[in-house]
């Protein structure tokens, strides 16, 4: 979250609701290492990234859902995904993200 710290602090000082997605595990060839983070605020503004741009659009939708229902969840994106997620990583790896509201 180091890279998005300034955005997080600014949004917090503005009283915005925020959700943070963090890469917690990578299998195979993944673009970003564990710890890469992306944040979304209630207005849909985005800071940071968790991949090379492949899954960020889907993460925004998940993050807004987190803000709305105050939920936490793990989300997995992979090349061979044939479940609910239509997007995947073009580099062939799998990334596991943890999403949660910034309420701590």
């Amino acid at each position, binding site marked *: 979250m180091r890279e998005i710290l300034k955005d997080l*602090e600014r949004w917090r000082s503005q009283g915005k609701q925020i959700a943070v997605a*963090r890469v*917690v*595990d990578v299998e195979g060839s993944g673009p970003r290492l*564990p710890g890469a983070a992306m944040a979304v605020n209630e207005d849909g503004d985005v800071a940071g990234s968790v991949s090379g741009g492949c899954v960020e659009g889907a993460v925004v939708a998940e993050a807004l859902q987190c803000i709305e229902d105050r939920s936490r969840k*793990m989300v997995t994106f992979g090349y061979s995904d044939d479940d609910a997620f239509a997007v995947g990583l073009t580099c062939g790896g799998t990334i596991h993200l*943890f999403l949660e509201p910034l309420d*701590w």
Partner: protein
Amino acid sequence: MADLFDVLSTAIKNEEPIALATIVRGEGSGAKLVVLANGSSQGTLGNESLDRVVIRDTIGELAAGTSGLRHYGRNGEARQDELDIFIESYAPPPQMLIFGAVDFTASLCRVAKVLGYRVTVCDARPVFATHQRFPAADEVVVDWPHRLLDKVGAGLGPRDAVCVLTHDPKFDVPAVLAALKTKVGYLGAMGSRRTTIDRNQRLLDEGASQEDLDRMMAPIGLDLGARTPEETAISICAEIIALRSGRVAPSLRDADGDIHRPG
């Protein structure tokens, strides 16, 4: 739980080592613990025995500067899989010491800052070693390089870099000798082929071993055909990345395998 983020962000801004442990799967998902290098902590993952085990493991991750997912039982039991806990280390930024206040130094400062280094420029000549000339540097020190290394060398480690750009044997021989005594991960020295041969001989005369010379990247930088100070800075930083990852740095086109390889 309101304060943990502030504790974390304050420590990161102050460049104090700190780690964040979060339950990401299992009972108590979202519970957090922040841990400092001395083992003091705030927050809880739910129970004391789990906290105790995770604090111990987190201190280890923090010392290594690594982040990753670990699996535990509900009370911190090893070899169980009831909880996934993500431990994220915020180690202070790596350091780059640049010796020699020359044009190449200003460019190297800028590129090193892009890569997240804390950059110190050191030169014994007060006319050249000024903040005005190196606005990107975190610190500009007027001193002999080897004297600065005597002071800060013990704090250098595998993530750090020493770049000797003076190409004046009067400065760079003692600087390299002092850098060789540290655990710095990257040591490079600028100069022509002739300067390099001359410097290597001087270093051997001063007691350096062949092994010491092999540790030093000289002439500094990858063979990119760099000419300008900016291009040279890229070639130096690219060499640091390649050395750290143990690659020979060919072009992607001419290599096989995954672009993002693990490790």
